[in-house]
């Protein structure tokens, strides 16, 4: 118990001066223009546009391919079943 009290007191003594000298941070909803953001925060627009168009193409081509394959599989299964029935 005594140890816990000492630990709490030590933490308080360390944190209090740190809180006093801490610089006021800008609020989370404060507007900062992208041009003023640090370089590592800025992504070239061309990369984002290329990623967006690339993603659309991959999804569309992938889905058409998957749908075509499923249709082909179903058609061959129907043909095999109908042949077995005859």
């Amino acid at each position, binding site marked *: 118990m005594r140890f816990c009290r000492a630990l709490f007191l030590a933490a308080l003594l360390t944190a209090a001066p740190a809180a006093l000298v801490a610089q006021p941070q800008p609020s989370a909803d404060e507007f900062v223009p992208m041009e003023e*953001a640090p370089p590592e925060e800025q*992504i070239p627009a061309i990369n*984002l546009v290329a990623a*967006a168009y690339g993603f*659309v193409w991959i999804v569309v081509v992938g889905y058409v391919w998957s*749908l075509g394959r499923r*249709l082909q599989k179903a058609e061959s*299964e*129907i043909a095999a079943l109908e042949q077995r029935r005859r």
Partner: protein
Amino acid sequence: MTKLNQIELALAGAMLAVAPWIIDAAPYEATMGLVQKIFYFHMPAAWLFLLAAIIAGTASAMFLFGKKRDMDGWALAAAELAVVFGIITLVTGPLWARKAWGIWWVWDARLTSSLILWMIFVAYLLLRRYGGPGADKLGAGMALFGLANVPFIFVSVNVWRTLHPQTSVVPTLPVQMGGPLWFCITAFFLLFLALLGMRARLERQRVRIEDLYLAEDEA
């Protein structure tokens, strides 16, 4: 694949292949610049995401209350397309927002409700895949929730404060921007029609396969 689906798919493919040149020729938006060009694919995908949800919900209602068995196949086809066009919308939107707003995502009414709609249809597909007997009716109920979400998503940008542009943007676009946008909407719509037709056909084939297996068991 029917002849009509083939024509729609070929037309959509040709239009989407030339779309980058048409979009490139469109003028830059004054404040956002190049990144605004994502809009030409983002907005048609978002419209079709909502259209697919409307079709899935309406077909599910007809299946549940009108006892129209074939409507279940159309609902399933539209639900799958809602997931496909939904993921396009939800990925291209943040790529645009990162440059335009400075953040990838914001939990406002439009974005959050769109994500919820997408998750409803992902859950619908999982339910249909692994739900076992009765999953069709349970799924139809779920699609109705999706349908109820659509008007909320549409009006959300006009009712609540959000970073997302309002619905009044499209009618006020200048011709140089409106032309490429309507070109992309037409291409996406043709693609949507072809995919919906193909996916619904796949469901009909699955029903046929089940019938053939049943007939084989009875024989």
